[in-house]
């Protein structure tokens, strides 16, 4: 800490702080346009000029000057104010002053400073700019006439998003922010540039002209898409969510969002939302009343022996507990599950065996504190983009080494010095085993490791997995595997990250055990910057696991429930928010199951394909209309309250479950906070939490690790079928599950399914970009648009699984790798 004086006030600040940061910390506000706390100092706008006693004679930019001991700083002398006025006059010289039609008005740094410094006239005169406004994409409008060249957009795109879409082009007075070759913006549309723009140069088009900033109510919430657990600030007007608002102080991610978080909110106020319960009468779903619908459902649930339930991991913790209570106590069935029954197995089986707990041993905050990251699949960026941003920052700012094991390259592979080992699809576990084997052979393991249970068995089980033996199966060289093993073992702090999800069937309990073995072998867990981080797919996947809402004690799991529906043992199926018809493997099997089950209840926001097959459809609320808690992938428990009032005709899942409990003669807990009290008493790690405390700040559920070695069953080498391509399923960056299909933003940039392939496979099959291709597998065939890219290795094709209109599960039966043939239509 250093001591200094700011405006005659004695203050202290950390040695690394700049004058601007020191002043802000101590409540002195220095005006600035080009600073964001996530970005490196830049010094572009010259608004933050201050006087420093020790550097008399010139004005010092506060944002780039580090503090020193004994500094005497004055931030608002008449000379400084005059200089700032001059800066504003010069900025306003070329600024169009079209505040009445500029959406930024009210939230505009330049406007606020102009008002604050009373700049109402200009001594200079010059022509305004006449740059062409970029309306080429549906999400981001770029009006360079309003730009003040602070460079924040270019810097956030480079430093955090690591895309590099924007940069300064041209020189002198002609300098502007532009894309490569001054063409239209075509990036991943995360909108980070919009969030930091101090003026109206970059604007969100979905919100354009919808409302003025000052008429919006800012409601804090938690994003309802992936498991990262980002905080959201929603802009609400007239009980409608109109936009998301940037708050640099929100959450671990400091307000940083991905494309779906920022632009995918429209589903909440969608006109397609279900507003009345539907009951199938004479084969047609007809509108009905809640009383009739719930009475019908309650009547069916009384037949305990034949009831099963599937829930989406988007329910709140309280709803999971209540649903479980309904099924366990009032209905009397153990057949319930979430996420198809396998997407959570890495946690509920893998980590339970290896770490003795169904949670990750590291948090997202560990990413930047680590020395080496081992990422399984580049898809981590697509499934959890904000975690991807953390990886970008770790690699670019902290010099963290990045190693990737993946079946295709991806954006993470482009990071500086990132090492990507592109292996054959489906050989992850064998590859991880061979890394473990190398660590053992080269004696790189931790000394205390022999005392961990299962060590001897592991050593003997791994004997077949020498790097040389596995290299061929993985399509890698033994040297590369050995290099990775020694890098991993020799780095002081290492973190393994892998995504899970319904599309990633290979990321199962065995993969979780295999990565856990690596961490346990080298002793890299339970410490800062170390461990294994399993990124669960949906916003409350981890919560569903923590609440125990999965098949246990002989209950049928997700896929078994569907089999039981087909063979008639399950007669009543309650699906809360899941859309198995699109997201579960093998569509024809799912369809047969849903067809043959006697009574199907679906509670949903929209009339999804699954809901359309139901006997009773219950319209329920989105995250923005209810209160509760979500647990993120790294077990951060966050409370959120309703951002808008729900429509009176719909109910929350919580109300549906408690109504059903009452109808079945049980006693439902009085409120969500009462349910959470039960959670805090019963769920390990949640002790001491309450809604009241969580309203103030989120909290991590603690994790207690008891390591054990487990032998992961590696699938033997998958024989390549001659003339066929290996299809891997996964997530697209713009989507999460099937919910994002109802968000307009994601659908603007990624409206339909596609099949991504390498140049060589495309030319071998004479396929060009955007050609309609018939993809056939043993399960079925499907038409998809071709997308040719450099990131896919030859012999591999990739397809995202989110789209109801092009359901990939018609050609995918759940195996990690499906062999397909392509035929141009």
């Amino acid at each position, binding site marked *: 800490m250093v001591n200094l004086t700011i405006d005659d006030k004695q203050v202290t600040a950390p040695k690394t702080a700049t004058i601007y940061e020191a002043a802000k910390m101590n409540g002195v506000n220095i005006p600035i346009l080009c600073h964001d706390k996530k970005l490196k100092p830049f010094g572009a706008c010259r608004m933050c000029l201050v006087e420093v006693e020790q550097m008399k004679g010139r004005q010092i930019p506060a944002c780039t000057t580090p503090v020193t001991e004994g500094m005497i700083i004055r931030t608002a002398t008449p000379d400084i104010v005059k200089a700032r006025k001059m800066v504003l006059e010069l900025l306003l010289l070329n600024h169009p002053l079209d*505040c*009445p*039609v500029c959406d930024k*008005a009210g939230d505009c740094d330049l406007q606020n400073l102009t008002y604050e410094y009373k700049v109402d006239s200009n001594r200079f005169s010059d022509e305004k700019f006449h740059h062409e*406004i970029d*309306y080429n994409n549906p999400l981001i*409008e770029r009006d360079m006439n309003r730009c003040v060249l602070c460079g924040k957009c270019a810097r956030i795109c480079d430093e955090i998003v690591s895309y590099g879409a924007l940069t300064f082009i041209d020189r002198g007075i002609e300098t502007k922010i532009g894309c490569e070759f001054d063409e239209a913006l075509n990036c991943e549309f995360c909108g980070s540039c919009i969030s930091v723009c101090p003026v109206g140069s970059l604007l969100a088009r979905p919100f*354009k*002209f*919808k*409302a*003025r900033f*000052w*008429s919006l109510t800012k409601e804090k919430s938690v994003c309802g898409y992936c498991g990262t657990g980002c905080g959201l600030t929603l802009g609400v007007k007239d009980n409608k969510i109109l936009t998301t608002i940037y708050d640099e102080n929100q959450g671990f991610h400091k307000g940083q969002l991905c494309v779906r978080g920022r632009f995918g909110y429209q589903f909440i106020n969608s006109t397609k939302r279900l507003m009345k319960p539907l009951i199938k009468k004479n084969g047609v779903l007809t509108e009905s009343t809640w009383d009739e619908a719930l009475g019908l459902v309650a009547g069916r649930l009384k037949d305990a022996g034949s009831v099963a339930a599937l829930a989406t991991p988007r329910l709140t913790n309280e709803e999971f507990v209540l649903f479980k209570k309904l099924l366990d106590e009032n209905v009397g069935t153990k057949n319930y599950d979430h996420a198809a029954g396998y997407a959570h197995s890495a946690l509920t089986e893998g980590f339970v065996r290896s770490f003795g707990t169904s949670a990750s041993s590291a948090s997202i905050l560990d990413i930047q504190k680590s020395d080496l990251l081992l990422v399984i699949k580049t898809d981590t960026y697509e499934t959890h983009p904000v975690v991807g941003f953390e990886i970008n920052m770790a690699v670019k700012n902290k010099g963290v080494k990045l190693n990737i094991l993946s079946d295709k390259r991806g954006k993470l592979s482009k990071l500086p010095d990132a090492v990507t080992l592109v292996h054959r699809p489906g050989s992850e576990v064998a590859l991880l085993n061979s890394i473990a084997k190398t660590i053992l052979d080269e004696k790189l393991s931790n000394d205390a490791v022999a005392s961990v249970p299962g060590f001897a068995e592991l050593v003997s089980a791994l004997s077949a997995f020498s790097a040389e033996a596995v290299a061929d199966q993985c399509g890698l060289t033994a040297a590369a595997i050995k290099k990775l093993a020694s890098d991993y073992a020799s780095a002081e702090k290492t973190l393994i990250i892998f995504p899970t999800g319904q599309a990633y069937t290979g990321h199962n309990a065995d993969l979780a055990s295999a990565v856990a073995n690596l961490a346990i072998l080298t002793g890299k867990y339970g410490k800062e910057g170390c461990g294994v981080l399993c990124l669960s797919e949906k916003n409350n996947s981890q919560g569903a696991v923590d609440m125990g809402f999965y098949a246990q004690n002989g209950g049928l799991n997700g896929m078994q429930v569907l089999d039981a529906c087909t063979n008639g043992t399950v007669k009543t199926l309650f699906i809360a928010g899941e859309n198995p018809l699109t997201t579960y493997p093998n569509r024809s099997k799912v369809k047969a199951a849903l067809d043959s089950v006697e009574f199907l209840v679906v509670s949903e926001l929209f009339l999804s394909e699954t809901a359309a097959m139901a006997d009773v459809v219950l319209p329920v609320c989105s995250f923005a209309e209810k209160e509760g808690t979500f647990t993120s992938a790294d077990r951060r428990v966050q409370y959120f309250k309703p951002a808008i009032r729900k429509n009176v005709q719909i109910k929350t899942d919580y109300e549906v479950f408690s109504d059903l409990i009452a109808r079945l003669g049980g006693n439902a807990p009085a409120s969500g906070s009462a349910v959470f009290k039960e959670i805090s008493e019963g769920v390990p790690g949640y002790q001491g939490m309450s809604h009241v405390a969580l309203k103030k700040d989120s909290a991590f559920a603690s994790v207690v690790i008891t390591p054990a070695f487990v032998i992961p069953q590696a699938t033997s080498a998958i024989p390549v079928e001659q003339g066929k391509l290996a299809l891997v399923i996964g997530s697209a960056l713009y989507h999460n599950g099937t919910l994002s299909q109802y968000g307009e933003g994601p659908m603007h940039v990624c409206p339909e399914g596609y099949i991504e392939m390498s140049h060589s496979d495309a030319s071998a099959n004479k396929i060009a970009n955007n050609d309609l291709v018939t993809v056939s597998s043993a399960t079925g065939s499907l038409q998809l648009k071709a997308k040719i890219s450099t990131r896919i290795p030859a012999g591999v094709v990739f397809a995202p699984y989110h789209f109801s209109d092009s359901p990939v599960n018609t050609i995918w039966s759940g195996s990690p790798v499906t062999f397909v043939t392509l035929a141009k239509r």
Partner: protein
Amino acid sequence: MNPITPIINGMAITLKHLFMKPVTLQYPTERPKVAARFRGLHALNVSHNKAKCVACYLCPTVCPAKCITVEAGEDANHDKFAATYEIDMLRCIFCGYCVEACPVDAIRMTGEFELANYRREDFVYSKDRLLEKK
């Protein structure tokens, strides 16, 4: 004072008024002369054959009676215009703040004061009714 004098004085005033121009306006056959700064019904100014209003929302923001409803739209040139502009005359207090706030001189108040109507919804003046007549 004797009791007769006030009565005479009163009668004198009455008599005087018999010969003065009457104050009472024989409305509706006679029309009042409305002052230029009178604040009556609003009109939206027109320029180049379209409303000058750019839907900046300053008038609904400043309106103390919250009687102005504006919804902005985006035209073919990506410019902002008022897709909806409504004033609820039952709520309006004719303060004139909307005119004062307007940065583009798009709204003014006319001398029109005969706003009576038969139905409540007729008091909500839509953009069409507010556009100045030429």
